[in-house]
């Protein structure tokens, strides 16, 4: 948009924009993802088109009902005039497969803030909204969330190039085996063990500390916001629905009136319309809540990256410490002084000096160990630096994305509020007309 200097042209552009719906605003976010474009997205168009219920036997041979989602892949070329678009390649995936994909990505790219999946179970629910996983509204919102996830991955500069991700989109059968073949499970297990362990880093990276703190704050505030929003929705629902009672009483009252009857009756209908309108209004607001939830879950991914960095940092510090210790030992052995307590040293003091041969072989072993240690530290250092570099690149990219997406979400929310106000004005104006005819 080219900005003219006069304010009036700006106003014209803005007024037009307030009529876009929240779905359009959502599409704006997706379009930005596609615009920025990765190689993958330049080639393919990705949709999660449908959801279907299936029943089958699970691993313990019990009947279970689950939902599968249809992924559609189309080549991203423009269709010629009058031509029909190519039929998409499709496959079905269930939620647990998405989870598997994400876990794989988390382990394989520890320095990347991996996009989150939509929630497994409905949370922050206001009372009229179902918390049932099989409820059609929940399934629909989940479908949208899964599509969003795939697009986020497909638009990520690093993740979009992953082979397993590509296979997820294209190979229905055999994908599971392919993932397991990568051996990521082993890495996952060891990582998991070390992540749960308690350790302290001596020289924490200030940037990562600040990021972790921000991520925690964001997590707290969005949780709070979602909780209060649910309560607000509940109350607003009550206000609207009680107005429906006016519909009934006006209708009853109109029965005993002569001139006033018609006006009252029609006004009553408008009150019914008003009461009914809240259902759609709040359903639309759920999209906004979902946008917030995505970033709530993103904070977990950010936290995870910070933690992994801490782990690498810790391992580096441990390796460096170990090396320093060994060097110290060598020095003592060479000079004969005992500054560091060692069992060998004590026993030789107690039981007599060792022979020259023994000393020299020990020195050689230490030298070897030191060389290995130096190599380990060098490697670990490189790993750490590489992690910091790639992680920070991704973090900057994430920050930009977050600011943009959340601002879009807020604009979308404001648009929803305006739409609600307009509807309210319409209904009450209609009712007023009826009252005037009384």
């Amino acid at each position: 948009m080219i900005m003219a200097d006069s304010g009036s042209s700006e106003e014209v552009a803005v007024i037009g924009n307030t009529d876009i719906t929240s779905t359009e605003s959502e599409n704006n976010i997706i379009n930005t993802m596609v615009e920025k474009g990765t190689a993958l997205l330049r080639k393919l168009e990705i949709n999660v088109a449908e959801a279907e219920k299936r029943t089958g036997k699970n691993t313990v041979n019990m009947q279970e009902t689950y939902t599968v989602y249809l992924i559609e892949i189309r080549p991203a070329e423009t269709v010629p005039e009058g031509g029909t678009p190519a039929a998409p390649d499709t496959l079905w995936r269930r939620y647990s497969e998405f989870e598997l994909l994400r876990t794989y990505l988390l382990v394989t790219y520890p320095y990347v803030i991996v996009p989150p999946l939509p929630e497994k179970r409905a949370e922050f629910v206001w009372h009229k909204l179902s918390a049932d996983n099989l409820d059609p509204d929940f399934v629909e919102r989940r479908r949208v969330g899964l599509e969003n996830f795939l697009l986020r991955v497909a638009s990520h500069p690093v993740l979009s190039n992953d082979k397993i991700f590509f296979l997820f989109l294209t190979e229905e059968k055999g994908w599971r085996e392919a993932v397991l073949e990568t051996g990521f499970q082993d890495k996952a297990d060891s990582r998991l063990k070390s992540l749960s362990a308690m350790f302290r880093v001596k020289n924490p990276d200030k940037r990562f500390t600040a990021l972790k703190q921000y991520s925690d704050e964001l997590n707290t505030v969005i949780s709070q916001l979602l909780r209060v929003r649910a309560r607000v929705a509940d109350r607003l629902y009550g206000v609207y629905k009680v107005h429906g009672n006016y519909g009934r009483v006006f209708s009853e009252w109109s029965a005993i009136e002569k001139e006033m009857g018609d006006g009252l009756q029609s006004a009553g209908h408008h009150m019914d319309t008003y009461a009914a309108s809240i259902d759609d209004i709040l359903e639309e607001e759920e999209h906004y809540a979902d946008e917030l939830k995505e970033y709530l879950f993103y904070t977990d991914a950010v936290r995870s990256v910070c933690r992994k960095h801490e782990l690498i940092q810790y391992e580096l510090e441990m390796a460096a410490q170990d090396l320093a210790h060994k060097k110290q030992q060598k020095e003592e052995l060479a000079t004969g002084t005992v500054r560091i307590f060692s069992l060998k040293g004590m026993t030789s003091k107690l039981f007599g000096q060792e022979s020259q041969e023994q000393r020299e072989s020990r020195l050689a072993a230490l030298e070897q160990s030191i060389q290995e240690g130096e190599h380990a530290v060098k490697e670990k250092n490189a790993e750490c630096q590489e992690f910091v570099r790639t992680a920070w690149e991704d973090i900057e990219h994430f920050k930009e994305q977050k600011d943009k997406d959340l601002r879009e979400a807020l604009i979308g929310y404001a648009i929803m509020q305006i739409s609600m106000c307009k509807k309210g004005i319409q209904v009450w104006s209609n009712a007023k007309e009826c009252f005037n005819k009384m």
Partner: protein
Amino acid sequence: MSVGAPRGLASSGQKPITEILHPLSAAEETLSSGPDVTVNVGGDQESGLTNGTPVETSSPASASLLFNRLQLDDDSEADARDPYASTETRDLFVTVDDPKKHVSTMETYITYRVSTKTTRIEFDLPEYCVRRRYQDFDWLRIKLEDSQPTHLIPPLPEKFVMKGVVDRFSEEFVETRMKALDKFLKRVADHPVLSFNPHLNAFLSAKDLNKRQGLALLTKVGESVKHVAGGYKLRARPPEFCAMGEYLDTFTQKLGTIDRIAQRILKEQSEYLTELREYGTVYSSWAGSEEELRRPLEGVAGCVTTCCGALEDMSENMSQDFLPVLREYVLYIESMKNVLRKRDQSQAEYEGRLEAAILRKQEDRTPMPVEVEKCQDKVECFNADLKADWERWQSNKRQDFKQLLTGMADKNINHYEKCQAAWESLITLLQEKQTEDKTSETN
């Protein structure tokens, strides 16, 4: 011919003072204006009589009989007539305002200024300004009820308020009460018969209201008058009055329901408001940990706060303007039902006496006693007055509720307009920033 106790003649619409003929002019009694006059000056009959024909009033009964006949003919005109169209012909304007607190050793109370503007010759001056307290309004109402038993007297706001529960001196309470008193007085002043009542004249003009007799005594007297005709059973109530009774019962019910709904809405809105306020503060606190998003988030917090304010205003308005009017109408309906009951009783009395007289006539050929005739007059007068008052009441009710409900619609529209404006200005702000960013990117 006996004039006897002051009786209201058949009521009619508003007429300019020059066209109103004194119904007793044929009998050549002098008119005297002022508070001590005991003869009621009644309005003229329907518009059909404005050619100047003096009314034959040898007996008030025949006047009302005449009126009854006219009533039927002029029904079509009555429909077309809008009670508020003739403001140019109104000659008595009253206002209640300016509440003031008075503290004395015995008690503390509020007085209101009652201002009158009039061209009526019954008043010595064209303008009056007096101060009255609730007690005085109550006195007036009782006087009107006693002197015009066949008419519907508008209601007063509730007399007793529980001390400790309601603050009698709070601004809202005084404001609400004052509006109701103003409405009461305006309704009386607009009534073609009641507005000529000498007690109203005294109320509006006298420096000190002479209320020597205690109010309590008066009330008791009023009560006993109501019951004097008791003991007679009503044979057959005319269908139009049955219909009125049924209508009033159903209407009271519906008003009660509407009152409950309105209160429930206020309660839900209040709870919504509480949550909404907290909602706004969360956005504010989020803004604190953001850089780029700080202004947008603060903007949202601001909008939410504005909406809270708008909602608060609307709720307060509804509480002060809407609910009291509803409740007042319930009182009005009670008054109307009372009048219907009194009418029933006077009819019962007439029927009882008539029956007794007929029996006696059959026995010893005594002529129809005068009491029976008087009763018949009373009943017919009552019926006529009541019917006319009923029409006026229906018409006023229609206007009042039209105003009340359109007022409610307006308040809601106003509330939404305020909220919409707030959110629209936020979007302008947010989208401005967006285009700013975009241009800085391309530069």
